[in-house]
Structures are given as C-alpha cells and as structure tokens.
C-alpha cells in the first residue's frame, strides 16, 4: 500500500511529519538547512530571547545512560541577531519546501511580546513559545509553564505581537495536569501546542560527589522521556482541539508512530540526533513510512489519536 507522508500543520504543507526540535542544530541558518537536507519536514530554531546570552559553562550536556540531560542555558544571539539568522534560513529553506518554526522565550510577559514582535519581522512560518523559563517577576522564579494563568498571559502577549503568524505554545511535563495548561493557552489564542519540553532532573557523579552539569540541574530528553511525552500528548489531545507537535524521546519511526497515536499531528525530534546523527531526521521519516505501509495505514493522519479515549 502506498504511503503518503505529507501532512498539514496550521495551513502549511510538510513533506513529512518529522520536525527538528528547538535547541538542536538550530543555532544557524546553515544548521537549519542541514537538518532540512537530512530529511526533516520542518525545522525549529533554537529559542531566542530579548538579549544575547552565552549560556552556562561546561559541562552543559551528558548522556546518562537512558537519555541526555542538558543545561545549555539558552545561549542565543538575542532577538535582534536572530532576525538575520531566521531570514537567511527562510530564504534557503523555501526552495526545499521546509517550513521554519522560530522559537522564542522571555523573562517577563512583556519580554515575550517584544521578542515575538521582533522575531515575527523575519517572517517565520510558525512561532513557538518556550514557556519553560523562570518568570523573573515571580518571587520563586516559577516557570510560565507551571500554571495556566501565566501561560495564558504569555500566549496573549505573543499573539498580540505577531499578527497572522500562527503560534504554538510549548508545554512542560512537570505539572500535575498538563491538560489544564493546554486548555488555558488555547483559550488565550494558541493555534497549536508543542508537547513537551525536557523534564527537570539532576545527574550526579558519585566519584566527584557533585552534579555533572555546571548548572547542577538540567532537562532530561531522549529515551527516558518518551513515556512522559506520550502521556502528556495524550492528555493534551483530550483537552484541546488544535494541532500538537508531539516531542520527546522519539528515536525511531516506531516511536514517531506511537506519539502520533497518542494524538500528535507532527513529531518533534531532538536527542535522536545524538544517538543516530543528523541523518536521524530523514531516517525516522523513512522508518515511519515503512511502519505505516506494513501496518496498512495510508498516511500519518490515519493513526493520529488512535488510542483516543472512547
């Protein structure tokens, strides 16, 4: 049976549902192009904020055996510098037919709006809002992703700033009920949901007697994250009726099928690039095609939300 991998996301046509996740290879136009040439259906830039940031000092990432943990520290050139990067990337991705998703973050609601407005001027196809960042206005620095109200406020600020560009809000897994956060941001105008960001964790080296990351804590990605992501995507899919960029622990085409079954519209892939190289992106698309063909499905949409609750 012929399989057609193309799919639709927020009015865009993707040649396949594999999306390069934010923060992986997304720091330059050439790396975004490389990801596209390696077979991604769409690519996401590294999250950019209001000001240039160097990020944390080394070690910033390590493979701890069942996944990766990272605390890169949101190094980025700042919204101003990002615009040139995005425009360059857009121009070079267009002939490949690969849409560009621009990821942004901020420390306050107002900053989200400002960054969104600047980044929107580069004309990305979608703006993704990383809300797993500490709210600097909150006395505990709680991430915006932690509660529905602040997540909704960020969403509104971004929507107001970007005009017609669709917005996907990227949720965090360390909440009691991700479905409620999803409902809040969709009510606030989010056009899509990206689920999920990394899970907070810590890796300790017993011989050193200290955390491996210089930042002590970091975000868990890769294989260990998959069941967490599947559950989050399934919860979000039940709660809202917008497209979902399902992300977390997808290492193979079979994993991609699972997250589609959980309710994702397209599939974010990040850490697989460490395990399999940049070619993972295209390979996972091919494997998904093979899985669909073997199982008798005609396209990714055929399995979307297959496990849905009755």
């Amino acid at each position, binding site marked *: 049976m012929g399989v057609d991998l193309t799919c639709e996301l927020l009015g865009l046509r993707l040649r396949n549902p594999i999306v390069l996740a934010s923060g992986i290879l997304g*720091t330059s136009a050439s790396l975004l*192009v490389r990801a596209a040439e390696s077979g991604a259906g769409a690519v996401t830039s590294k999250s950019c904020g209001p000001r240039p940031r160097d990020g944390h000092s080394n*070690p910033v990432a390590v493979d701890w055996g069942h996944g990766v943990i990272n605390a890169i520290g949101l*190094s980025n050139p700042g919204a101003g510098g990002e615009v040139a990067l995005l425009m360059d990337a857009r121009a070079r991705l267009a002939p490949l037919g690969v849409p560009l998703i621009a990821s942004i973050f901020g420390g306050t609601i107002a900053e989200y709006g400002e960054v969104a407005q600047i980044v929107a001027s580069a004309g990305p196809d979608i703006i993704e809002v990383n809300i797993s960042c500490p709210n600097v206005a909150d006395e505990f620095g709680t991430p915006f992703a932690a509660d529905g109200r602040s997540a909704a406020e960020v969403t509104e600020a971004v929507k107001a700033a970007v005009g017609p560009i669709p917005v996907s809000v990227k949720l965090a897994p360390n909440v009691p009920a991700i479905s409620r956060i999803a409902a809040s941001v969709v009510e606030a105008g989010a056009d899509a949901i990206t689920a999920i960001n990394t899970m907070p964790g810590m890796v300790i*080296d017993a011989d*050193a007697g200290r955390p*491996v990351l210089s930042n002590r804590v970091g975000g868990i990605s890769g294989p260990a994250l998959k069941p967490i992501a599947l559950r989050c995507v399934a919860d979000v899919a039940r709660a809202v009726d917008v497209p979902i960029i399902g992300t977390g622990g997808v290492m193979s085409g079979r994993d991609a099928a699972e997250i589609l079954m959980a309710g994702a519209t397209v599939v974010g892939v990040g*850490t697989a690039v460490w395990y399999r190289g940049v070619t993972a992106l295209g390979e996972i698309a091919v494997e998904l095609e093979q899985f669909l063909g073997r199982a008798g499905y005609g396209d990714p949409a055929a399995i979307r939300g297959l496990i849905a609750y009755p």
Partner: protein
Amino acid sequence: MHEVFTVVHVRAENYRTKTLILDRSLSAQPGQFVMAWLPGVDEKPLSIAAEAPLALTVVSVGPFSEALHGLGLGASVWVRGPLGHGFTLPDDPLGKRILLVGGGYGVAPLLFLARRARAVGCTVDVCIGARTSADVLLAASFSAVGAMLRITTEDGSAGSQGMVTQAVDEALRAERPYAVYACGPIGMLGAVEHQCKRYGLPHQLSWEAHMRCGMGLCGACEVHGRSAEGWLACHDGPVDRG
C-alpha cells in the same frame, strides 16, 4: 557519562606542555577527542594522544589546562568519549607516503596517527612548526617511530627559520605525498589547505572549535566553510576529510 581515569604518569614535553598518562585504555582513532572534566573547574575537548593507555598532551594556557598540569599521580580525570571522527589512513597503506603537519598541541594526535601509519607500512613525513625551539613538541617521539622530521621555528632557534608552510612546500616539492594530515592553529590549517588545493592533494585537517555539548546537539562547534553545510567539529570532525 564520564568515566573516571587515574593519572599514573606525567611526562613533561616542554616548558608548558605535559602528557598525562592514565590508568586504562580507551579504544579510539587518531584525531578523535575526549571531553575531559575536572569537577568544579571546567570540561573541555582534548585530543587523544595515545589510546593504550589513554594519554592526553596538554599545553598550559589558561585555567583548565593549568588545573590539568596541577594534577599529581593518583589524581582523577573524568573523561567522556572517544568523540567525533578522526583521521583515516589510505585504504591500501603499505609503502604510501603521507605528510603530517602540526602546530601547538596539534602534534599530539599526529604522533598517534604516525604510530598507526608506521604500523601499517606508510612512509611518514612530518612538519612541525613552533615559535621557538622551546615550543617544539614531541620531536624525538616522531623520530623514534621512524618518521622523517622537518622542524621550523619563527626565530630559527630550532630547524629552519620560518613558518611551517615553508617546510610543507619543501616536502611537497621533494616528493608528492599520497595525502596530507594537519592539526594546529586555524591560520596554519588555512594555509595548509590552500597548499593542498594548489597541489591537488587529498587532505584531512583537524579543526578547533568552541565545544559545549560535544554531542552534535547544541550547534556551538559549527565551523563555516567546511566540506558540508552546518559542519560540526564535535560530530562531523574535528577532522574534515573533505
């Protein structure tokens, strides 16, 4: 995760360079590197200078390399790797002549390469460049493995006076090698690349970059103008094999 290695021997190579010889082997290709971590200090890339046992040749230039120089026997070094892609020898190496060009700590992985190349029957020419005689690294070791050595120093205090590229020119004119391998400062690499292209010679150059994740994820180590769009030193390199 990092593995902990213990320093079992320290060899002074020159006034600011030491080789740390560790307690175990790490199977690797010449040109590959490790991320070496000193908890509380830093984690940085270091070329694998030898694999059995693992050895790291460190030039003391700043906080991290100084901390490595401060390690005594029995001290711990945390290592993840081998990472990246190293040099590859000719498919049918016996009797083939290769030219190695090194500057700074770049001679360390070349010595590892020279050993491998000699073991499979290559003829090995080496050009080492340095500022003064005191900066020349590992010259005796290259001679010991039977490599033909040309040294240049900027002040002429050892070998011929001049830049290493002059020695390379000489070597290339003397006899055309099968391929050229280089590791060292970016300026030197650029010049060697230019020479190889002019002579139409296959070349494999090891490029430096600021490394963060070392895992091909973060993009920090991208080197522009390499053989592929979005070339990552930690993942595609550090050796660019063209």
